[in-house]
Every structure is written in C-alpha cells, then in structure tokens.
C-alpha cells in the first residue's frame, strides 16, 4: 500500500488564519485543497511537508458568486464537479464548465477543486514516479537531483503545465486574488505562471489563492478541447482554450491559450491577432490554426509522441474555431472524438 509520509495537519477556519499559519511555518508548510494531486505526489515522496494547511474548513473559499453580466467570483475551494455543473458557468463560460468537467475522473472532480487545478503541479513522466523508480533512473532536478532526463544538458526543468482550467481561465481574462499575512493582491491569472517546470507559479509560498474572478461574459464565446488517450483519468497532453468576442459575425477580440505543451499555459497571440476583424471562414481558421501551432513546444515527457501533440495543436485550434463558427464537421465540439 502506498502511504503518506507523516505530517501535522492544520485546518484553519478563515483565510486570515490560514495565511498566518503559512507565514509561521514557512517552507515547512504546504497548502492542501482537494488533495487529489498533492497526496499522490506525497505518497511518491515528491513532497514531504512537515505541516499541511488544509483549506477545506474555510467556508469563504467555497462557492460561486456574482453573475455573468457583472462577472463571476469562483471560490477556489469549489469542487470541479460544482464548477462544471454550475448553470451560470455552463451557459456563459462554457469552456470553463467543459474543462472542469474533463479533469480526471468523476470521483476526483468531487474531491478536487478549481483552485487546486489552477495551481496543480507540473508533470513529467520522469518525475511522477515513485521514489524507487526515480532513484533507479537517477533523480532529476525537480526533486532530489540536478539533471533533466527529458532534455539532458538543459539547465531548466521542462515539466508540463497539466491544468485543464488554467488555459481556459487565461483565455477568459480571469484575475486571481492572492492573500498572505502581509496583505493581498489581485493580478491577471496570466501572470500566475512562470516558464519553469519547478518554480512554475509566481505565487509566493505564503500566499493563498483566495478568489478567481471572471470578467463579464457579455459577447464572448468560448471553447475548450482536450487531447488525451482516454475519456477519463488522463491529464491533458494538449489543451486548447479559445475565447472570442464577436461583433455580428466578425471577430472583434480573440484569445487562444494552449495547455500542456509547455511548463505554463501558452498564449497564441499571433493566431488570435490574425482573427481580429475577420469572419470565421475556413481560410481564417486555417491561418489561425497554423499560427497557433507555433508556440506549442511539446517534449517527450507525457503520454503520446511530442510530434503528434504538436500536430494536433493545429487540428484542435481549427476545431475549436470551427465549432465557434458553427461549422459542423461532425466532430464533437466538447472533446476530441
């Protein structure tokens, strides 16, 4: 039986208490939300925190508030199931409901939270292995070692951002509120991520993700497509989030963000730019899809061959756009068939 290493568990009732505890315990402490990613990692000894600060008892972090016309506030401890089934989210931010509903398995969506998914550890199939396995192959720089096994000679870690919801929230223009004992700050979610497989969050260790704020949905239409081998359990090995604002049938604003092709979600700005002022014709879609595939730089450290993931970036971006354009090609628009 895989077991957790020992730790002390603290269950604050308020964000302020949680922030204080994190400040007190410093690097010894880690935050746990749903635990669906942290506990497996701890069982494999990727993390051995002395103290866990569980956020489950903080009611202010749970639930969805506001409205699509003024913007929604998603409590980070809201479960992925709740997010995916929330009527307002499903109607006005469909890509987010889709992404939340495609995370892992039904059970893990009942346990896992939107905040946890936003902050989920980067993944690499040289890293998400047991202690003994990592010892056998030689520890990598993300844990216990100083080399990179996927890109030998590299001075950085190439672990992959594996969140379904992060690229969607980025494409929706979400902001996050971070709270610490010293105060709080609200920043675009795009600034939360760093291009480093180890130090992948710009969140300070003592900061708590206290809120996720979606801008008003008005006029925006979104899609999320996910590539993975099975329809359940599997992390994305490519995620495509597209959010368009339409002025009649012309694109007035566009954001395309790719997940799981780098250590952070990658915004495909030239692709999005190319759509502005255009109708969603086959030509415009093809051009945008070709441009979007540019920033995708997958390496061979997830399921599926990296060249295949790169190739699929173009296909998936095109499919997301076709779906938004109402061009029915028989392909299920919520997920890869």
């Amino acid at each position, binding site marked *: *039986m895989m077991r957790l290493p020992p730790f002390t568990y603290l269950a604050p009732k308020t964000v302020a208490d949680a922030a204080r505890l994190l400040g007190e315990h410093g690097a010894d402490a880690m935050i746990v939300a749903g635990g669906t990613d942290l506990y497996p990692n701890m069982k494999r000894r990727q993390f051995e925190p002395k103290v866990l600060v569980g956020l489950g008892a903080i009611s202010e972090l749970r639930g969805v508030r506001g409205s699509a016309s003024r913007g929604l506030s998603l409590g980070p401890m809201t479960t992925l199931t709740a997010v995916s089934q929330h009527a307002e989210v499903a109607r006005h931010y469909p890509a987010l409901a889709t992404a939340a509903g495609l995370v892992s398995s039904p059970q893990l969506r009942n346990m896992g939270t939107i905040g946890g998914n936003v902050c989920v550890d980067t993944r690499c199939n040289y890293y998400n292995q047991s202690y*003994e396995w990592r010892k*056998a*192959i030689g520890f990598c720089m993300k844990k216990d070692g100083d080399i990179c096994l996927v890109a030998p000679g590299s001075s950085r870690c190439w672990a992959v951002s594996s969140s379904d919801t992060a690229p969607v929230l980025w494409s929706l223009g979400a902001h996050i509120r971070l709270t610490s004992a010293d105060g709080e700050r609200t920043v675009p979610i795009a600034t939360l991520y760093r291009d480093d497989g180890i130090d992948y969050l710009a969140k300070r260790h003592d900061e708590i993700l206290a809120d996720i704020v979606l801008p008003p949905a008005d006029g925006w239409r979104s899609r999320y497509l996910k*590539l993975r081998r099975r329809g359940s359990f*599997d992390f994305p090995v490519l995620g495509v989030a597209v959010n368009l604002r339409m002025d009649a049938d012309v694109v007035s604003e566009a954001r395309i963000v790719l997940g799981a092709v780098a250590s952070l979600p990658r915004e495909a700005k030239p692709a999005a730019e190319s759509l502005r002022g255009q109708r969603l014709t086959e030509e415009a879609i093809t051009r945008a899809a070709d441009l979007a595939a540019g920033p995708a730089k997958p390496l061979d450290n997830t399921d599926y061959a990296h060249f295949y993931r790169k*190739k699929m970036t173009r296909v998936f971006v095109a499919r997301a756009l076709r779906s938004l354009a109402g061009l029915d090609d*028989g392909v299920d628009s919520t997920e*890869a068939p």
Partner: protein
Amino acid sequence: MNKHEFSIIGQPLPKVDAWAKVVGETRYADDLVMPRMAHGKLLRSTHPHALIKRIDTARAQAVPGVYAVITGADLPRVKFGILPVSQDEEALCNERVRMVGDAVAAVAAQDEETAEQACRLIDIEYEPLPALMSIEESLGHPEIRIHEYGDGPNVHKNVALQFGDVEAAFARADLVREDVFFYEGNTHLPMEQHAAVAQWGADGKLTLWSSTQTPHYVHRLLARILDVPAAHIRVIAAPVGGGFGGKLDPFAHEIAACKLSQLTGRPVKITLTREEVFYVHRGRHPVLMWLKTGFTREGEITGSHIKTWLDGGAYGSYGVASTFYTGVINPVTYRMPVYKFEGARVFTNKPPCGPKRGHGTPQPRFALEVQIDKAAEQLGLDPADMRRRIVCEPFTKTANHLTVTTIGLGECIDKVVEASGWREKWRGWQTGAPRRGPLRRGVGFACSAYMTGAGTAIYWNSMPHSGVVLRADRSGGISVLCGATDIGQGSDSILAYLPAEVLGLDPKDVHVPPADTTLTPVDLGSYSSRVTLMCGMAAIQAAQRLRAVIARAVARKLEVDAELLVFRDRKVGVPDDWEKAVPFPHAVELAEAMHGVLAFPGSYAPPKRAGKYKGGGVGPSPCYSYSACAVELTVDEETGEIELHDVWIGHDVGRALNPLLVEGQVEGSVYMGIGEALMEAQVFRKGLHKHPSMLEYKSPTTLETPEIHTILVETDDPEGPFGAKEAGQGPLLPVLPAIANAVYNAVGVRVDEVPISPEKVLKGLDLKRQGKTPRVGPERIPLFKFKEPLVVESAFGQPADAVAVRPFADQETSR
C-alpha cells in the same frame, strides 16, 4: 441422462459467490489479518543488470519495530522456475540482478511504514553491467550473457518444426504473401495487487494464503525453494481479484513471507504495490513475426510458414511454452495442409513475460488474420466469406498432429455476419464510407481458435490433471473439494452446478470450499482454459459415483430397478410414481447406511494425443473453442483517433453451462483485446519500465469500451462436461485483427503492429497522401539462425483418434 432435459445447465444463474462479492464479504489475501501479524516489504533492484557486490542490512535491522531482515543468503541456494526446463529464478537475488524490480532483500516489521523505511536503509553496492533491452540488443551482444543456459547466447529457446513441404505448397499457390508484424508486450493489470500471508507454526508447519492461480505449483515449488518437506506445507488459495495469467508463477513475495514468518515466529503479510505488480509481470510477450502463406484463387491456404521472435525478459517463467504457442495453434482454425514454424525466445533485462490470456497465441493470430485480409483483397474475395469457406474439418487432425473435435466456427461466422449487418456494412475493398467531415467508418472481420486446457502438465507425470472429492452430508448437502481456484471466472460455481445437475440438487446445496492443498485434491491451476473442462469432468465423475450408490440404496427401499430412478428437485424416485420419491437427505442416509461414509473421488486427465515428435506436447487439448468477430469503428483522419462502436462476437463454447458466465468471459476477453489493440503497452526507457502506474498504463474505461454483442454457439463437444468448451481466453484473439482490418476498411491504412495508436494511423495516412504504401509496421527481421527444423509428415486431414479414451474415465458410465 438425456442431456436436453437439464435443470441447471444452461440456466443464467448467479454465481455461487456473487452474494459475498456484492456486499464486500469476500476476503481477498490482503484482507486477512492475524494476531501478532507482521508486515513485510521487498527491496527491489534499481539496476537493469548488475552484479551485487555487497549488501549491508545493519542500518535496517536497527530500526525500531523491525523484526527481521533477510537477503538471498538466508534462503537455501536453489534456483527455481515454474517449468522444469527453466530453473533460473531466485526469490532474493544473490550475485546478480537482471532487471529493475528484481527482489534482493526483505523486511518484516510491525507495520508497513516501518518495513518500507527499513528497506530504504539497506545498503547495496552494485557493479552495473550493460543492460540488454531489446531482441536486437540481446542477439547483437552475445558477449553479454543474461543467463548461462539456453539455446545460445541470450537465446532461451530456439525451436523449428516442419510438417510437410512448405516450398512445394508455396509453388502450388496462386498468391504467396510475406508480411512482418509486431505485437507489443502488455500486462494483465489485475485490479487486485498480489498479496500473501504466511504463517510458520511452532509445530514447524507452514501455511501460506496467497492470491494465486495455481496453489499446487506454488506448493511443490515452495518445498524445494525452502527445503521443507512438502507434507509440512499448506497452501490455501485466497479468492483472486483478477488473474488473467499474472498469478501463475511462484513469486518472491510469497517465498519471503514464508521465510520471514519462520524467522519471526509471526504471521507475515506482504502486499505488492501497483508498481511492483508491473515488475512481477509475466504478461504478454512482445513478438516480432514473419509470416508467409500461400493461397489459391479461391482462398484456400496451400501452406503457411511463420517465424517468431519473443522478447522474453529476464527469466524463463512459462516462456518455453509461450514460444511453442506462437506456432502451434494457428493450424486449428483453417485448412492448412502444410505448416512450418520457427520460434525463438530471447532474454532481455526486463520483467519476465509469460502467460497472459491467450498465452502466446494472440500474436500469431493477429498476423494470420491480417494477412488473410490482405490476401482476400488481392483475390477479390469478401473476407468473411473467404474465412467461412476454409474452416477446418471437424474430427480431423491438423498438419501439426493436433486433434480437433467439434468446430462451430462456420456457424459463428454466419451469425456474426448476420448480426453485424456485414453484407450491408462491408462495401468491398474501397476505403471507408465518409461519415461526416474527417470521420471515416469501417468494419473488419477476423476469426480464431483456442485450446480448452493443455494436454500435458507443467511437470511430466501420469496423474490426474484435476481431482475432486465429493462428500455427501446427512443434511442433504454435498461438499465438492477441488484444488481449482476461482479467479472470477466462476469455477466455484461450475463445481456447484455440475454435481447439482447430476444429483438433482440446487446449487445452493453444494458447498465449494477454497483450494487448500491439505484438503482438496490437486487441480493444476486456473490456466490454459482448463478448469471448466477438467474439474467439470472430475466433478461429474464423482457425482455419478455418488449417484450410483444412492440409486442402489433408494432402489432397494422403493423396490424398483435402480436404472429407473430419477434425481430431481432434491428427491430420488421413479417419475411415474413420484409421490413415493425419497427426499435427498433421506436418500443420503439410506446410502450411508448401506455403503458407509459417502465420499467419492473424481479424476480427470486429458486424452493422450500428443504428437509423436519432440515438442508435440504443446498444443494438444481435449477440444478447441472457436470465435468469429466483426468490429465497426470510426477513424478520425485528422487525429488518427479510433472510436469503436460495436463488437459482434460469435463463440463456439460447446455448451454454455451458464450462459451468463460464458457471456461474461467473452465480454471480458473482448475488452482485454480492445485494450491491447488500441492502447495497452508495457514499454521501457533507459532500462526501466516507462510508466508502472494505472494512470499511464492505459486500461480502457467505460468510455472507450464499445457495445459488445455476444452470440453463443453450441456444438456439444464429446470431450467436454455436458459438451462444454472454453470461453475465457479464445474470444480475445480475433478482436485485435478485426480492429486492424476495420481501420484498413475505414481509411486504407494497414497498421501491422499493435497497439494501433493514433500516431501510427496518422503516419499511414501521411504515407498514403504521399503516394507511398500506406503501411505502418516493422520493416526488418533479425539476422538469426533458427535450428534445423524437425521434419515431420503432415497429419492434415487424418481422422481424429477415438474420442473419450482417457485415463481414469469410467467407461461404463456415460456422461
């Protein structure tokens, strides 16, 4: 007995253990808890190939709560293996490790955490050796030897058999095809991780409870490995939470638990982690195959020649048998008058391969059925019709001297063609009907055959393969003692149904205790689809012996001729005078008063029909099951992804003793075939298993599993219990080639290797677009010299030997 008037046979009854399973009562090995029980853990090698220079357990011994730490030095220096010809394993390696995951030490402690912590404090110094991770590397580096024995450097087994003149057969053919195929290795992935509890009593006697498919072989081998008289060892099979062939060898954790129990004077439990289950393995061999077959214009096969190279992994396991199985079963399906087989199993520094559902036969079946599809296209034939036309003749011998009895394959094909709408859906050899956008629909067809129990035991002997002791109780209940292990396939239920049928009882009146080497007669184990047939025949024999004695006693009481008595509804009587019928409990009392204690043995051994040539012992079986399969799927031309819609499968099971259980076996086989066809792969990188986890070893979920339509065909085989043949393995075989053929039908791409991943489909489509041959698969075969073949005359078409001449059979009592 008129076999068309069954009362239990043919009924869709719940399994006898179903109730315990749905309420969580069933106690699997890891659920066992005993007073003072210690928890064990194995330390496993972190090197694929290395010499062990030094092991120091001092730091581990010093951990508070640690009861004992052992290494290979604490066990008798004996090498073992499941096959007498491959004694190459050690429970805890002494001088050398041959794979990442080889066990080198074991700890018993007061809890699992302490044992694990202590394992990490065992200091081992290794001297790494070059690791050989593929067939090519192992054959290319004869100077590095993984084992000293075998048929050449790193060649575990090299076989060559020839039945008739293949070159002449090819010369006679209108079409000769040569193709190369590859079948990636994969693993059983039972949901239950292996577990064992050992208790070495103060009396010096050892009891082992284990999730094993073969308590008898474990019993035999433990005696040798531990150097303890077998009479002092008791092995009890716990209910097995999924086997599929993965729990058929004696394993390090079982042996270590025994030794640790002896040293600590406590019961010791060891449960493997999921990662360890991947290392224990014994799963599907990766096999590279070259297949050459001649066809006439009409689609008749003139002769076939197959060469196979098996990537065996680090140890022998069942590998010699696996090697033969890649060659010997192909001829039992279609008329194949001339046949040649060359096979080699190569050692590599990976977890050893062995028997997985279909043992060695899905690989050549994939090759043959895809090649037939290719030939059908060249010959302009409908692939279902072509197969239908060339089905073997029943009650004949094959080229390689296997005796086939009943064959329901023709009926399977007909019914699958009809149920699937093949005539409408298969639109000839042009590629797939466009559905919408990039989606292309396709259908594919394939057939197969599989054995119902191996004709010979693992070790040479003339004893029964299966034994039953049936005891009647004055309560009117009976107990069926048998060493068979229920791994979910329902063998306990079969052992209840058959005697209940013979004795006119309800299955609920029959008690089937678990396999226990001190209580139950030997059954060789749950492998090679042998249990229903062999235990079933033994159980029927025992029940008939009891029935005869009861009949004599009741006949005397009722003053009628015993021949006139009928056993039904828990009564024994004459049908015409049923109100006088004696209730079964009373009948038992009458019989016990007359005969003494009512305990009767039943024994079964297969008919002795091994071919009279060296190697002729692998392949013979009392009878063979047959399957035909059609698949409908969609291929996405932009992503290469495959979506399965429906699988239709017709299976000749001889007789469905319980159609519900047979369907369950067929559906499970189809499921496992789908996984192997599309996504399951046991692959390695830098000397290690690439992804020993449930997340990255892809087992299909409900969402990837199509609707499975099962059609059972009954042929009432004279060899089987009430006519039954196997169902648990054969239906896996045609699924993979049917999928490959359907992909070709959909998009015109031949993927000649499994798994058929989206990357491979896309590669094929790219080749097609470039005007190249749209085929993805292996291009080369190794430079390798097979043995001079043993040349034997083909026995093709000869009439079968007499049926039912078997050791231990009661000739006077018909079935």
